[in-house]
């Protein structure tokens, strides 16, 4: 990780500067502020969802310095200096990312609450393994819960995205 900003700005607060989807954000925050709340409330990027808040559901999955993590299980101060990618950063020039498109085309969502986390995790998974088997897709998504789809179409979507991206 990049260097920390250590100066105490006012009592009990610490300056956090980080990059989300290429844009820099800076705010004095309490150390107990969770990264997901920095993303949603400070950066006002509400595509990253808060689901279970107990590190189970994966709705809050983001990419931190190239690795997928659950942003509800990390303090914003830990991410000072980090490069973060969220669901809002995937589409380019009004064009959906191939993973987003694949979820659209394959009915990979119903209510859509888990979808940002699913897509960010799939994004990391396909970077690690551009040609996954169905088993590898399922194992790669074990940290993301969906209560609607039964996962069949999510796996299908990721498989389709992988094909498109190769």
């Amino acid at each position, binding site marked *: 990780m990049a260097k920390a900003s250590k100066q105490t700005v006012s009592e009990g607060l610490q300056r956090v500067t980080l990059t989300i989807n290429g844009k820099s954000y800076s705010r004095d925050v309490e150390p107990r502020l969770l990264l997901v709340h920095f993303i949603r409330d400070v950066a006002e990027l509400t595509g990253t969802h808060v689901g279970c808040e107990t*590190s189970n559901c994966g709705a809050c999955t983001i990419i931190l310095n190239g690795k997928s993590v659950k942003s509800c299980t990390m303090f914003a101060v830990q991410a000072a200096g980090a490069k973060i990618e969220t669901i809002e950063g995937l589409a380019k020039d009004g064009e959906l990312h191939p993973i987003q498109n694949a979820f659209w085309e394959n009915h990979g969502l119903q209510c859509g609450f888990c979808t940002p986390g699913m897509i960010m995790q799939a994004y990391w*998974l396909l970077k690690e393994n551009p040609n996954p088997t169905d088993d590898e897709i399922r194992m790669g998504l074990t940290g993301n819960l969906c209560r609607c789809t039964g996962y069949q179409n999510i796996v299908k979507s990721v498989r389709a995205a992988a094909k498109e991206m190769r």
Partner: protein
Amino acid sequence: MVPRKFEYFAPTSLKDATSLLKKHGSDAKVLAGGMSLIPVMKLRLGSPAYIVDINRIPGLDYIKVAGKSVSIGALTRHHTIETSKLVRDKLGILAETAGWIGDPQVRNMGTIGGSLSHCDPSGDWGAAILAVRGSVRVKGPSKERVLEIDDFLVDTFTSALKDDEILTEVSVPLPPPRSGGAYVKLERRSGDFATAAVAVQVSLDAKGVCSYAGIGLTALGSKNLRASKAEAALLGNPLTAKAIEEAAEAAAEDAQPTPDPLRGSAEYKTEMARVYTKRGIELAVQRAKKVK
């Protein structure tokens, strides 16, 4: 879920980190991957007044061969160990164990040093490091010491770390030829803590006689336990089906599970200790026979 207020430090050297720990004593807690500590703080099961984040300290994230051992830096993430070619080639049991921890996102953040220091009896690393008879290096403000894993794991959520010490490295002896290991785990659903899990490492001599046996148990006692009777049942014997069965029965005696309202009675867990030890030994032996 919001943790209680705390003061946050992100030191950039072990010296600074240990002096912060010395200053704040038991009110301070080390933050590594945070995959256990942060949920604990959010649920307010624990509310340390001072958090010492060691992630800004360089030089604690590595896997390397050092003499006749493999050394793993405390901040090495589970995913790094899971996918390390060196680990897969030399100590497959560790890569397999890493792959059973939590879920992919947790493995991207969680660290081997943090997991061991947390000393959760349901943690996976303790059993694996017992099986391979690893040691840990811990550093305090003025001195460093090396502890065998058996001495490091003290009790539930209690390691041998003093308040001002940090685990910096895990070291595992390189196994001889004809060695193999396995980590087999029973979980209610993917990503759950173990109902029971067993780590097995064996070595065979040229005649197929067991020349090394290490067996560690997860979620089968107040901490990760060494299955000593099961190890003794293997050592010095050819690993026939009968010998494996006897070792598995011995492992059930070694296990000291407490009933878990979510994951099964003590009786069930004891039986799973037997079943999974048997499977673990069979798999380890198969792998040992393939490794020249």
